[in-house]
């Protein structure tokens, strides 16, 4: 399983763009990159997933370079409600895979007014 490395914490101010980078040097060919968001006292929530290049949804963008050894979650114009822990995961998306995902410690994003 590919191990991921991301910063423990980040600070930002309201209205700024926040980029959180995750390193996954041992990513396998079939692995997808998925990001989750977790608020205090809640379970993690899926926010975005990608395989290569760029993916964008209503919440965030995910940038993946050609070598796929890292990825960057981009949150445009953050607000106080974006204060949360963000997890980067790498795993095989096939339904026949009964392996495990590894949740690291995540990145705690603190958005200040």
């Amino acid at each position, binding site marked *: 399983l590919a191990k991921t490395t991301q910063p423990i914490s980040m600070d930002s101010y309201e209205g700024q763009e926040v980029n959180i980078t995750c390193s996954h040097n041992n990513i396998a060919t079939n*692995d997808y990159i998925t990001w989750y968001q977790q608020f205090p006292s*809640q379970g993690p929530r899926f926010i975005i997933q990608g395989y290569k290049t760029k993916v964008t949804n209503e919440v965030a963008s995910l940038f993946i370079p050609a070598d796929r050894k890292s990825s960057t979650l981009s949150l445009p114009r953050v607000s106080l409600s974006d204060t949360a822990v963000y997890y980067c995961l790498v795993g095989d998306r096939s*339904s026949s895979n*009964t392996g*495990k995902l590894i*949740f690291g410690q*995540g990145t705690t994003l603190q958005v200040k007014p």
Partner: protein
Amino acid sequence: DVKVTQSSRYLVKRTGEKVFLECVQDMDHENMFWYRQDPGLGLRLIYFSYDVKMKEKGDIPEGYSVSREKKERFSLILESASTNQTSMYLCASSTSLATQYFGPGTRLTVL
């Protein structure tokens, strides 16, 4: 929307008690998971199940067992609760391992 529910948000038990944590999902997902989350340690996988009556150990299965008699329900059992099992317990379900949907969590305190 996928809905994963857990039987209790908060639970207080005594050392030595048998504890059942229930998780139900309504999206016909094959895979279900139990994690515990502790400060500074992130989420750690206890057990997962990829089909009815099938289970596999995660990273920290000691002191726990699981039951999956029906596809929608996955139970975590603490045979004899101990104080070091005080934690937040999170259940998740998925059709693929890279996209998991989590329940709200159960904060268990063992006295």
